[in-house]
């Protein structure tokens, strides 16, 4: 294909500054301070990690200002720097314990030069006590002035790309940070945790941030009269259980005052913030489709994919190919295998690391997927597209899927569908999950038929509702993959290109959300798999997640339903009983992740089973939510539940759903020059689904 634009541009290296923190924009209230108290409730997750800033106005380049920190010896400390290379650190002398709540505070008396440090664990451990109250009289230092903003969970490290950069990022929770304009004793610090702030302390309070307010936003609100609100950078986790969480409420909306904690991570990343090196304006008449910016530099080459949709409110084809971007973001820069020794047994072959995998391993600042854990061991619950996504590239291998990583995944696998549509000459528009979440039924309601990608696993409620209404109104859906419509994600109310997922209860995952943190901060919805939310996938697509394996793929054998008159249009021109015992993905059309027809999974009673999978190895194991009781014989060779079912069913008003229920289906489409029974079934269904005659 001819490039639509070409040019030569100067290349440059741009850094990514990962790590989340709070920034207070207004400087004046802090600049005027002489004596002060800094305090917070904290739950540190890596106290022995080295210096981590809790709160303060400290400039790392100038070594100037003041900050309450966890110091290199894991103790609480106050740093004072005069900006003339004189830095004084007063420490509690007692290492903090990991994952314990503390009241921490430090006061500075400008008159006497006295510094006091308070490190008070919420729970007393008689044989492992970490309580400390240390006062050091007459420090000779005065905090120096600087341009550093007041920051929470990091200190100011200078500017880059027009943005303040954080350094010495903190891992763990912070709740109820406060700053006062005089020395407070421990009782006053404890009293300052009350809501509202006691009247006698109000004149002393400069700011008292209440993280339980505005949880779905990136704003942090000051509950004091000064209203010194701030902003969060790189999406730390909100709606986190606070120091006062009782466990009586699991939903932050029912007891927000117990959810005043934010969990910060040194490896949070929302927006890489790179500056543009070239721009391309999509012409109004450019055909909707999947494109890539091809970058070359000497021998090196890279492709940055992008999707061109029709202008909002219009369409250019009867078929929409829905690119499952929510699921792309969920897997973005996934790197779980480098620290999972069990992955080879799980996958049934050696792990195979691509150059992209090695790069991500060396560059943690490129951020995590929803399958990774943070450095501090907590589960990742946000993933964004505002960063380079190295595993969303054509032609790359995926470390754990197929020997040598030879089975494509997500974007790569979906290119098989794009290729087939092009080769068969079908007109189609490309739309994405991000568009569907935003526009709902208005978007897909325009189309006679919607075709999914190979793994549309993650679905927001707005997307689900749009599908549901679309199908009731006579829409047609071709579900072209496996393990789809599985988990609920939330898009952010204002920030583009980011999803949240709290992994709850049961499902395949590396790590679960913590107790009491099962509700999304973006919109207050309960996270996890749709099946446990009362909307099993079968209610939309007739099937639900059954089994997965990553070694080889099987094939489909037709069932009696495929010979019924309702299915005549699907198998017209096909005499074969075996469907898809070929293909470039694992050698067969039934594989990797498969869904089965089952009333318990929501399949409507009139769901017609057209074919069932065969030939899966015992590496194929059932999804964990099917294994509430563990017993021998779980593998697909011994377990009739561990199968995929190709299905069709009619929906009200002449609509219908066809589900391949297999991730590897698309890898068989191109076999024998697109002349094969997988291609034929797909083509038959698509042509009928585009025909307005009721099904």
């Amino acid at each position, binding site marked *: 294909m001819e490039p639509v634009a070409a040019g030569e541009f100067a290349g440059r290296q741009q850094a990514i500054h990962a790590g989340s923190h709070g920034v207070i924009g207004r400087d004046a209230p802090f600049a005027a301070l002489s004596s002060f108290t800094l305090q917070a409730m904290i739950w540190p997750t890596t106290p022995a990690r080295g210096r981590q800033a809790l709160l303060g106005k400290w400039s790392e380049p100038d070594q100037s200002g003041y900050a309450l920190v966890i110091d290199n010896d894991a103790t609480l400390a106050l740093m004072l720097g005069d900006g003339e290379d004189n830095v004084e650190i007063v420490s509690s002398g007692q290492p903090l314990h990991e994952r314990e709540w503390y009241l921490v505070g430090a006061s500075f008396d400008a008159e006497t030069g006295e510094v006091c440090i308070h490190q008070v664990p919420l729970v007393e451990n008689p044989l492992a006590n970490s309580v400390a109250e240390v006062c050091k009289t007459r420090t000779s230092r005065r905090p120096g002035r600087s341009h550093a903003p007041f920051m929470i969970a990091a200190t100011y490290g200078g500017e880059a790309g027009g943005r303040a950069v954080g350094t010495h990022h903190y891992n763990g929770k912070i709740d109820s940070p406060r700053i006062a304009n005089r020395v407070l004793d421990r009782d006053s610090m404890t009293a300052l945790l009350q809501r509202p702030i006691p009247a006698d302390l109000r004149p002393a309070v400069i700011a008292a941030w209440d993280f339980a307010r505005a949880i779905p936003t990136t704003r942090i609100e000051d509950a004091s009269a000064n209203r010194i609100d701030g902003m969060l950078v790189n999406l730390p986790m909100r709606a986190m259980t606070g120091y006062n969480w009782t466990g009586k409420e699991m939903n932050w909306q029912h007891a927000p005052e117990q959810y005043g904690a934010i969990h910060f991570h040194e490896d949070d990343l929302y927006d890489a913030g790179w500056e543009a090196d070239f721009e391309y304006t999509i012409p109004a008449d450019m055909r909707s489709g999947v494109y890539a910016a091809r970058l070359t530099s000497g021998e090196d080459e890279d492709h940055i994919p992008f999707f061109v949709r029709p202008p909002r409110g219009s369409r250019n084809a009867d078929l929409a190919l829905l690119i499952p971007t929510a699921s792309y973001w969920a897997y973005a820069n996934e790197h779980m295998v480098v620290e999972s020794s069990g992955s080879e047994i799980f996958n049934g072959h*050696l792990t*195979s690391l691509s150059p992209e995998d090695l790069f991500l391993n060396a560059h943690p600042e490129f951020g995590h997927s929803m399958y990774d854990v943070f450095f501090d061991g907590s589960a990742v619950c946000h993933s964004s597209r505002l960063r380079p996504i190295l595993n969303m590239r054509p032609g790359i291998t995926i470390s754990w899927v197929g020997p040598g990583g030879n089975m494509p995944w997500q974007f790569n696998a979906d290119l098989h569908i794009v290729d087939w549509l092009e080769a068969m000459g079908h007109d189609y528009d490309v739309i994405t999950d991000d568009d569907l979440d935003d526009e709902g039924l208005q978007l897909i309601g325009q189309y006679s038929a919607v075709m999914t990608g190979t793994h549309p696993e993650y679905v927001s409620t707005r997307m689900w509702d749009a599908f549901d209404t679309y199908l009731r109104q006579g829409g047609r859906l071709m579900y072209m993959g496996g393990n789809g419509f599985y988990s609920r994600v939330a898009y952010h109310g204002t920030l583009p290109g980011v999803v949240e997922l709290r992994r709850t209860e049961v499902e395949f995952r590396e790590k679960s959300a913590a107790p009491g943190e099962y509700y999304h901060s973006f919109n207050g919805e309960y996270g996890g798999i749709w099946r446990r939310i009362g909307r099993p996938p079968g209610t939309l697509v007739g099937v639900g997640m059954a089994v997965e394996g990553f070694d080889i793929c099987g094939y489909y054998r037709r069932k009696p339903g495929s010979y019924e008159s309702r299915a005549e249009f699907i198998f017209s021109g096909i005499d074969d009983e075996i469907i898809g015992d070929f293909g470039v993905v694992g050698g067969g059309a039934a594989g990797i992740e498969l869904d089965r027809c089952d009333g318990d999974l929501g399949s409507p009673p009139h769901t017609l089973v057209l074919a069932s999978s065969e030939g899966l190895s015992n590496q194929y194991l059932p999804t964990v939510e099917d294994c509430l009781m563990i017993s021998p014989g779980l593998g697909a060779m011994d377990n009739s539940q561990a199968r995929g079912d190709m299905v069709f069913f009619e929906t009200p008003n002449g609509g219908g759903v066809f589900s391949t229920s297999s991730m590897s289906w698309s890898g068989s489409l191109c076999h024998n020059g697109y002349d094969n029974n997988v291609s034929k079934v797909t083509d038959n269904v698509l042509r009928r689904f585009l025909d307005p005659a009721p099904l």
Partner: protein
Amino acid sequence: MYKIDPSRKDLVEEFRANPVGHHSADLQQMLNVVRADPFPGKYVLLCVKPHREWILGRLSGVRGDPVEVVDDQVFTCAEDAEWEVFKRRWKTLTGEDLN
């Protein structure tokens, strides 16, 4: 706990003929041990040219650690590398050389 029986060369041959995919129950059980070599030093493939060339590496299990390159033996088929790693692990587990 299951222990590998070094006399079961039939299972070795079964693996060699088909390292990835359907296995007999006995081979599957053996592989659950063979493939369980721990960090640090767990064998992985390093893809040199996508879908075409691999070399062997070893992982420490710690994120961010460089991946050790074992040597410059290039495999043009991932299944061939499976056999090479199997031989190395067999040597460690049983003291025997396979060829």
